[in-house]
Every structure is written in C-alpha cells, then in structure tokens.
C-alpha cells in the first residue's frame, strides 16, 4: 500500500458510520487496556514503592497528578488538531471528536489542579500558590470553559463547529502566550518537568529527578490514562454522532412534514 493510499484509508474513518462501527469494535480493548494499566500501575505505585525520603508517602499522588496534567494538555492539542481537520477537510466526525474531548479535558485539568493542591499542602504548606505552572493550568481551565460554553450556546451544529474551531485556534495561540507571560510574571515553587528528563530514565542522580522505582509504575499509569482518554473520546464521539444524527433526522422530518 502506498503512503497516499494509506492516507486515504485513514480519511475513511471520517465517515460517521464507518467511525461508529470501528470504534465499537476497538472500544472494549481500550477499556480493558486502560483498566489493566491503571489497576496495576496504581496498586504498584501506592503499595509497592517506598516512601520518598523527603516527601514521605505524599509523593504517591504523583500517579494521578502527572498523568492527569499530561492528558489535560494533550487533550487541548488533540482538539486543536481535530479543529484544524474540520476547518480544512470538513469531516463532521473530527468536529464532534473535538466537542467530545473538551469535557474530558476539563475533568483532567480539575484532577491535576485538585491533586496538585492536595500534594502542595504538606509540601509547600499551602493549597494554592500563584506559581506559573499552577496558574497556567487555571488559565487552561478557563479556556476549556469558554470553548464548551460556546459549543453549548450555538444551535446550528455546523456553525458551532466552525466557531469553536476558530476559537480553539486563536485560544491555542493565546494559551501559549499566557504560559510565557505567566512564567515571566512569577518564577515558581513547582519543580521543573522531571518525569521525561533523561536523568529519570538513566537513573543519574539529580535533586529533582523521578527515580526508576517511581518511574515504571508512573509510566504504566500514564499509559493507562492515555488509553482511558482514547476510550472516553471514542465513546463520547459515538454519542455525539448519534445525537447529531437524531437531530438531522428530526430536522428532515420537519422539512418534509
């Protein structure tokens, strides 16, 4: 199969019916995979890793905090990608996937903020600080809220898809700008991104690295969150497609009636 043919095959999933059929077939695997990874990862992480010499057992909230924070950002990136696909190729499934993903992104952002606060209280002595990373997530949360509110406010589905897509594009630029503005505005308490740094994997000891003992169960949890996210997006996109189809059928009924 040539690359072009492969690319064409990918676009077939833009057909709502084909998407529904395929997602129904693969969904169980994602659910099971997510469940397995999360159960094993969380149990491993919570009960079979030692307490940190400095942070005690509070460190274990990392198994929820880091994957949720990752998915909160990745979800927005996915929405940006699907919005672009909708604007360029006008595939309805793409727009509906963006719509379906947004509430998941909100929940992930909330989980990241809440677990961060719970972790921050014993570590920094405060539930909340206007640290750049925390602040950025709060701003991301506001962007999600605006995006969802716009979807809900507009009746015509194609108009809603168009407008939210443009908002997602413009919002991405401003979210990116805000991230840098916030960095400039306040240097924070939060440690740097330390999971994926080379030191974490090679085990070279630095002050802020996440060591191997924590890394493998964390990796499992991250994979679990990714699978869970994909499963949820597929599931919710399926629901959106059915809702949209119902709406279209009712509209046709009105026109013919």
């Amino acid at each position, binding site marked *: 199969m040539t690359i072009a043919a492969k690319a064409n095959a990918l676009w077939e999933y833009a057909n709502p019916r084909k998407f529904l059929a395929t997602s129904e077939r693969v969904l169980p695997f994602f659910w099971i995979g997510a469940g397995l990874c999360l159960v094993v990862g969380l149990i491993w992480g919570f009960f079979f890793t030692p307490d940190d010499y400095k942070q005690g057992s509070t460190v274990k909230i990392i198994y929820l905090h880091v994957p949720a924070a990752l998915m909160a950002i990745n979800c927005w990136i996915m929405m940006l990608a699907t919005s672009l696909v909708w604007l360029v190729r006008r595939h309805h499934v793409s727009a509906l996937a963006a719509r379906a993903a947004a509430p998941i992104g909100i929940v992930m952002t909330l989980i990241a903020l809440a677990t961060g606060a719970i972790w921050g209280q014993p570590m920094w002595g405060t539930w909340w600080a206007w640290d750049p990373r925390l602040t950025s997530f709060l701003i991301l949360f506001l962007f999600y809220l605006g995006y969802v*509110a716009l979807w809900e*406010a507009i009746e015509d589905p194609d108009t809603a898809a168009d*407008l939210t897509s443009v908002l997602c*594009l413009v919002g991405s630029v401003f979210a990116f*700008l805000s991230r840098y503005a916030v960095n400039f505005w306040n240097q924070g308490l939060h440690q740097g991104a330390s999971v994926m740094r080379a030191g974490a994997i090679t085990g070279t000891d630095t002050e802020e690295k996440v060591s191997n003992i924590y890394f493998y169960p964390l990796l499992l949890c991250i994979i679990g969150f990714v699978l869970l996210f994909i499963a949820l997006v597929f599931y919710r996109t399926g629901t959106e497609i059915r809702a949209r189809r119902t709406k279209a059928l009712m509209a046709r009924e009105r026109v013919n009636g």
Partner: protein
Amino acid sequence: MIALLLRDLKLAFRAGSGFGLGLAFFLIVTVLVPFSVGPQSSLLSTIAPGVLWLGALLACLLSLDRLLALDWEDGSLDLLATAPLPLESVVTIKALAHWLTTGLPLVLAAPFLGVLLNLPVPGFSWLVISLLLGTPAMSVIGTFGAALTVGLKRGGLLLSLLVLPLYVPTLIFGAEVARRGATGMETQTPLLMLAGITAATVALLPFASAAVLRINLR
C-alpha cells in the same frame, strides 16, 4: 472606510451608547477599591497600578456586547457584508471606533483615578504608556469575541467568558509595566512584550474576526 468610522463615532456620541458608561464604570470601580481594602495610603499605592489596569480592562469589556450586536439586529451587518468593503476592514474599523470611544477615554482618565489611589509619582507616565499600548489589543480581542457571539441571545455573559482568558497576556505585561514603573524598576522587557502582543493582535486577529463574522452571517 472613513465613512464607517465616522458613522460609528457619531452613533457613539449621539446615543451616548457605552461612551460615558465605560468611564463611569471605571470611576466607580476605582472608588470602591478603598472601601473594600481599607484607606491606608501605602497599601493603596502598592495596588494602584494593578487595580487601575483591571478597572480599565473591565470597563473595556462592558461595551463589547453592543459592538457588533446593534449592527446585527438592524441588518446593517448583512448589508455591510454585501458592500465593496472587505469584512476584515469592517471589523478593524469597528475595533478602532471602540478604542476611540472606550479605550482612549480610559487612558486619559486613568491618571486622575491614579490620584485617588495614591499612585506613586513615577507611576503616572508608565500607567498611561502601558494603557495606551494595551487598550488597542483589548479592543481588537474584544471585537473577535463580539464576532463570535454576535448571533446569540445571551451573548453578553458568554462574551466575557470567552474574552477574559484572551486578555491574560495583555493584562500581565501591561500591569507589570505600570507596577514596575511605579516602583522605579526597569520596564523595558514587559513594555516590549506588551507592544509585541498588541502589534500582533492588531495585525492578525481581524482576519479571524472577519472569518468568524462570515460564518455567523450565513
């Protein structure tokens, strides 16, 4: 283009639609601040640059929902869209008219309100400069928000929800300039960032606003 600008200015002056209201709102917010935080002049002079920036931002927001909605309701937008004027120009002019009737008066009023909040003397010029650079971005971003929500019945509240997060970079850098200026620190970096953001939004965002308006008109 000039005709559209003149018409919008004339409308703003005649109906007093939002023209004086934004200023009055700015004044009231500023007056309420000492009531809520206490009258100590040292505290007030510390928070003055930030409060004035926030007050100006909220006053700007106040008149946004009428920016395009009035033209939408009476059909002018449909007619403008079929006129020889490109929609990109229309939204730019609309933003300019909004800035002239809302942003500029706020900039001019800010130093007087600074007196009320005991703004340190070196802060005055920086406050005016930062607002002068920042308010055009607020008008342009606001026009984008207004274009997004123009056809909606309860657009006003949604408009604030959409626009306020977009104001974050402008607010951060703008208030930073005013704050640093008031305490005698160097202001060059945030000033350049503020100017850059304003220049980029004024140059690029009208295209997004026009695109969004076209979608809403169909």
